[in-house]
């Protein structure tokens, strides 16, 4: 079974480049050049240099002893939360801004949900001296205020998206409109493995450094590069794509994607696309999409802004359809509790997105010998308001 993209830009039945003609030259330029550029020695040298000295890679693979004891398994945390700017998102923005420079682009745009991708984009734009505009849903701007201010400090212009439910989907719409209106000098740094081909493949490749490191670090730790499980949360799916990438063809490694169930998959407030979605076309690719019978996109819901998206990347749709990845979901409540559990057991406050991955531990039947890697995609600093509003960490349940 082939899990990577084919020549036409598809993962099985999913993918492609469903874009209006106004975007065709941009996307085609990327498609025809991205592989050659990112595989060149020159690019790789600069990319790896920045990942090491600027981002702080490799990020640690930490044996979480108390968490392991609690869940009766050997659990490692891949500490993407320790990346510069606080999440894995910067792996991709470093890659894409280097690519944008090689393509001669002068301006950068991005969409952001939780603000992590926006911050990571604003950061690399400051580093490279490029103009940066970030679109962010107005609701997300309210629930992730510190990240909005971080972007402003970094010199980026944050533009509120005021359509729809004013979250990630709407921010993506606005970013695409901006790109249509500025096709020549602007590169759009998409933050997840979504969008028209070649974005899903490009972003997955930039994030694949995560699983590359896991293999090396696990070998050092256990003598075996392959864990029994890799767990990652999935909104669009970039951290999961990176954590799964080098294990995809090793079928004995169980890969677990965790979606946001919101208030529950049987409520109208959820973002669990593999449960609630069907095949459809949005933001440039064919994938699984939460939609009405009439093909209108359904507004998703999750407490976590980074998972509040009505689709998943086409690669994940294919991994779901082929059964290569098992998709689970965690509710707001389960994720918040898992976040506090990790904080209490390991002294690590995770981003609420990443807390969804931690919540999956109690949904798996694990054995003591099982080696489990959780991709801890981001840190919880940005989520303090949400933790405080939820407030149950003060209660007796912990």
């Amino acid at each position, binding site marked *: 079974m082939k899990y990577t993209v084919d020549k036409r830009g598809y993962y099985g039945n999913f993918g*492609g480049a469903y874009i209006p003609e106004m975007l065709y030259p941009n996307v085609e330029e990327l498609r025809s050049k991205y592989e050659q550029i990112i595989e060149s020695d020159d690019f790789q040298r600069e990319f790896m240099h920045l990942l090491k000295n600027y981002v702080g890679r490799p990020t640690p693979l930490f044996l979480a002893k108390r968490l392991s004891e609690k869940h009766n398994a050997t659990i490692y945390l891949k500490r993407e939360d320790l990346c510069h700017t606080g999440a894995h998102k910067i792996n991709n923005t470093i890659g894409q801004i280097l690519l944008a420079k090689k393509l001669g682009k002068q301006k950068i745009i991005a969409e952001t949900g939780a603000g992590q991708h926006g911050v990571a984009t604003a950061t690399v734009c400051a580093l490279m001296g490029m103009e940066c505009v970030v679109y962010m849903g107005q609701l997300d701007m309210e629930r992730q205020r510190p990240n909005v201010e971080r972007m402003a400090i970094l010199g980026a212009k944050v533009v509120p998206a005021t359509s729809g439910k004013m979250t990630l989907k709407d921010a993506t719409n606005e970013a695409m409109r901006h790109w249509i209106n500025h096709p020549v000098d602007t590169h759009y740094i998409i933050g997840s493995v979504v969008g028209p081909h070649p974005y899903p493949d490009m972003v997955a490749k930039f994030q694949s450094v995560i699983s590359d490191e896991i293999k090396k670090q696990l070998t050092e730790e256990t003598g075996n590069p392959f864990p029994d499980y890799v767990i990652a949360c999935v909104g669009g799916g970039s951290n999961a794509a990176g954590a799964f990438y080098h294990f995809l063809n090793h079928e004995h490694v169980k890969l677990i994607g965790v979606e946001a169930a919101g208030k529950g998959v049987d409520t109208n407030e959820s973002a669990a696309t593999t449960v609630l979605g069907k095949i459809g076309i949005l933001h440039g690719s064919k994938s699984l999409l939460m939609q009405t019978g009439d093909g209108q996109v359904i507004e998703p819901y999750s407490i976590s802004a980074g998972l509040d998206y009505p689709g998943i990347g086409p690669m994940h749709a294919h991994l779901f359809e082929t059964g290569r990845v098992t998709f689970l979901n965690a509710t707001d409540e389960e994720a918040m509790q898992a976040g506090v559990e990790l904080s209490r057991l390991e002294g690590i406050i995770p981003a609420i997105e990443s807390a969804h991955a931690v919540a999956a531990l109690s949904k798996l039947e694990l054995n003591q010998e099982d080696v489990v890697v959780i991709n801890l995609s981001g840190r919880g600093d940005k989520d303090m308001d949400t933790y405080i509003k939820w407030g149950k960490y003060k209660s007796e349940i912990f």
Partner: protein
Amino acid sequence: MKNRINYLFEKKNKEILSIFFTAGFPTLNDTVTIAIALEKAGADIIEIGIPFSDPVADGPVIQESNKIALDNGMTVKLLLQQAKEIRRHVQIPILLMGYLNPVYQYGVERFCRDASDSGVDGLILPDLPLDEFEKDFKKPFEENNIASVFLISPTTSEDRIKKIDKLSTGFIYAVSSSSTTGAKKEFSPEQETYFKKLQGLKLKNRFLIGFGISNQQTFIKACTYASGGIVGSAFISLLKSAKDLDTEVVNFVKTIK
């Protein structure tokens, strides 16, 4: 039976006015009223927008009309019924234009068949890739006598324009600038250079210029290079504030032609 679009172009080669509006806007059943008024006013082609929740290629005016139409309860099924009703009164070509997903969910073959039954002559799906069209859409389009219309933009290469010309059977929709939809005051010299280039390519299809055509001045300019022009956002702005649709639609078309 000959497709009405082709029939139109055989009889008329210049100053073709095509008007776009969103189905189910400003109120659910205005679609029929507006279409009938447009023919009466002298429009040559009617383009009816299939509303979509996430219209990424559209500017604020058409975005808002999409949202209002969906809030009004507009659906693909209802649109096809309205088209059928329109066809009982109207002789000029009708095209449907929209984002791919609603059509895809309805089922491509079923959509083409039902659209054809409703008297629809052509379909414009701006986010449908050419290779996908060839693979899954071309056949049902042909079988149901639905003309295919594709967009080109100022950044479309000459090779690609030729490919698009080959696959188009109605006309070519030449987008005037690299932008989302919406009214602009006038064309720049660069845009006119692009129109001249198109004129010089000797394409099989006629082309109509759209995006940024909002008044008589821009329409006349479009007509000096193309077979005509397409008005969208400016018309939708009028519909939004219109008190008497019938009269105001007729007056609007008079100010353009």
